């Protein structure tokens, strides 16, 4: 019995917990998309089919939020990953005070998002923060003004806060992955005359690939759903220029109290993320079979 049952024994505890506490509420939440659920209204709850999805298709705020979500997610993930990888590489070779440096650069991750958002909003505010004055003196801005009030560029404020907060995530996980690459592979390659870029491409990258894939996938999914920084720093404004799908869902759910519509938008977001995940898995499969 043990051979067949082994994998299930290893994975079952985790699966049971997730099924009970996450998947059950998720399915219930998802079912709202097909019903008319107005919070606190005892008369609501009827089945409405695809009504919400039709409404969503015609809603310009939805498309605006979708566009912003793509910008927000792509920029945040690209910058977090790129900068995080460089940091992991820098930390992977020993140097003096490495432990202390590692501790210090990981600290942003420990700050609750809401506090970090308020802190960054403070930094961007010309009355109390230094950043607008620095931007003005460097020429990025004509006068010290608040980036968060400029509809064209406001999204970059939360993106900056997000990158600051998220670099440690990639740095920690990629660093741990880097640590498991045997040193002698590098030595052998060096003896064979391979330069640093060649070594990176043929030794480091393949070893990092599994970790990279999972961290990028999950980080993208989380960031797409992550509205805390935006809600605190700009509340979605000005004029919805920083509204992303996840903050729009929050508005629909708790201001219009229309949980049905909010759930429909969440369902669309879920579909898009699933498609993205499938794409990533296919890509990895393709690269693996090539090698």
């Amino acid at each position, binding site marked *: 019995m043990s051979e067949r049952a082994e994998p299930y*024994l290893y994975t079952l505890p985790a699966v049971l917990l997730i099924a009970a506490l996450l998947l059950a509420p998720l399915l219930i939440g998802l079912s709202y998309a097909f019903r008319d659920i107005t919070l606190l209204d005892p008369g609501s709850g009827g089945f409405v089919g695809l009504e919400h999805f039709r409404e969503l298709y015609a809603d310009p705020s939805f498309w605006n939020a979708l566009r912003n979500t793509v910008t927000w997610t792509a920029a945040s993930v690209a910058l977090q990953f790129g900068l995080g990888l460089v940091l992991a590489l820098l930390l992977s070779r020993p140097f003096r005070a490495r432990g202390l440096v590692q501790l210090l650069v990981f600290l942003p991750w420990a700050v609750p998002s809401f506090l970090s958002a308020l802190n960054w909003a403070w930094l961007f505010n010309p009355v109390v923060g230094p950043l607008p004055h620095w931007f003005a003196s460097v020429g990025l801005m004509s006068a010290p003004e608040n980036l968060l009030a400029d509809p064209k560029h406001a999204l970059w404020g939360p993106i900056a806060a997000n990158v600051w907060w998220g670099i440690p995530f990639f740095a920690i996980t990629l660093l741990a992955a880097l640590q498991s690459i045997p040193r002698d592979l590098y030595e052998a390659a060096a003896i064979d005359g391979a330069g640093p870029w060649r070594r990176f491409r043929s030794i480091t990258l393949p070893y990092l690939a599994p970790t990279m894939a999972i961290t990028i996938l999950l980080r993208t999914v989380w960031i797409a759903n992550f509205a805390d920084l935006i809600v605190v720093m700009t*509340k979605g404004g000005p004029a919805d220029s920083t509204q992303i799908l996840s903050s729009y869902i929050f508005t629909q759910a708790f201001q219009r109290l229309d949980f049905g519509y909010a759930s429909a938008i969440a369902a669309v977001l879920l579909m898009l993320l699933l498609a993205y995940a499938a794409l990533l898995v296919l890509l990895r499969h393709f690269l693996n079979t090539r090698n």
Partner: protein
Amino acid sequence: MAKCLPRLACLPFAVCLLFTACLPPAAANADTTLKLVEVLTSPERTDTLKGLVGDFEKQNPGVHVEITSLAWSSAFEKFATMASAGDTPDVVELPDRWLSLYAGNGMLQSLEPYLAHWSETSRLTERALQAARAVDATAYVLPYGLYLRAMFYNKALFRQAGIAAPPATMVEFLKVAQKISALPGKSGYCLRGGPGGLNAWIMFGAAMAGNNAFFKSDGSSTFADADWIKGTAWLVNLYQDRLAPQDSVNWGFNEVVAGFYSGTCAMVDQDPDALIAIAQRMKAEDFGVTSIPKGPAGKAYPTLGYAGWSIFKSSTHKDLAWKLIQVLDDPRGNLRWNERVGALPIYQGAEKAPLYSDSRFKGWFAELADNDEVPTFMPTDLPGFAYFADSLVVRTSQQALLGQISPEEMNRQWAGYLTKARNKQLERARHE
């Protein structure tokens, strides 16, 4: 294999056991427990509340009141989640904006039978009773105070700009704002472009229109009228002429008040409860309170809000809950409460109390005594008003301030939404 299973399973159980042991012990045996939820929480206020509740518990031995204090910034979502799951208290602090939601969904107990037998009911002011009966002409809430808008102004900045007296009309207001904005790094008006800014749009719109009727007799909204549009355009021009700080387009309550007491902008329209925060951070001789500036018709329409106490229909101790509200809201309790909260009194003749004869409240009582200042209730009883005020108004007003849409367009959208809401409300009334 048999070895690892118990080991794997033990760990989560052990962990669970560990802190069920760590949890605080269940409340001591009390005969009855009343649940009270406060939502406009601040640490000093909670202390006062505990004091009043302590008096109640002394008068009613065997009764324990469990106070839950929700952080205001997330109170609405939190309470709505709890209420929808059936986790309802006996007594809740209810802001005016929440009334139509909870009363409209039949979750609140009507207080009329209690008011009919209460000795203090006759001492309540007309306005307080009107506020209590906003939904279905039935009292679902007992207000503890009224919030009347007035204009705070920074005397120090006025002195600096050489302005002798605060503006009494909108024309003077503009002139004053221009003079202050000419000072380096300062602005005339602390505009609230973010959530909660609806009050200002309504006040200036109504002042321009010379009346505060939100709906015409046929049920359509007055917002699309030319005069209301003039009010909107006036405020939009004020922002675009840089008489308000550039980032005020996104300012909420905290930013507006902080902008005022930091001296960034010289005038802000606010309720008396902001007085406490401002008085803590500014010297008394540096700020003053005056009436809302009047429009071309010689009248102004300061908005009136309120908060109070309600009983949930699901409560199993309704009479006891009413007793608690009496302690919190009878003339003595109300005065003690308002000392901390800073709202205007609900009882007739309260202006004579030492708290209110203080010079800080002079501005509001002068405003109340002025016949050309007409306190106006916002239509918070409309279904869907919260979404209107917190989402539609914010988005469209920001678009208008930034020049993405015209004032006409913004008012047209508002009128469309409000007319629909009004029709829904009238239909609901017809069906009952």
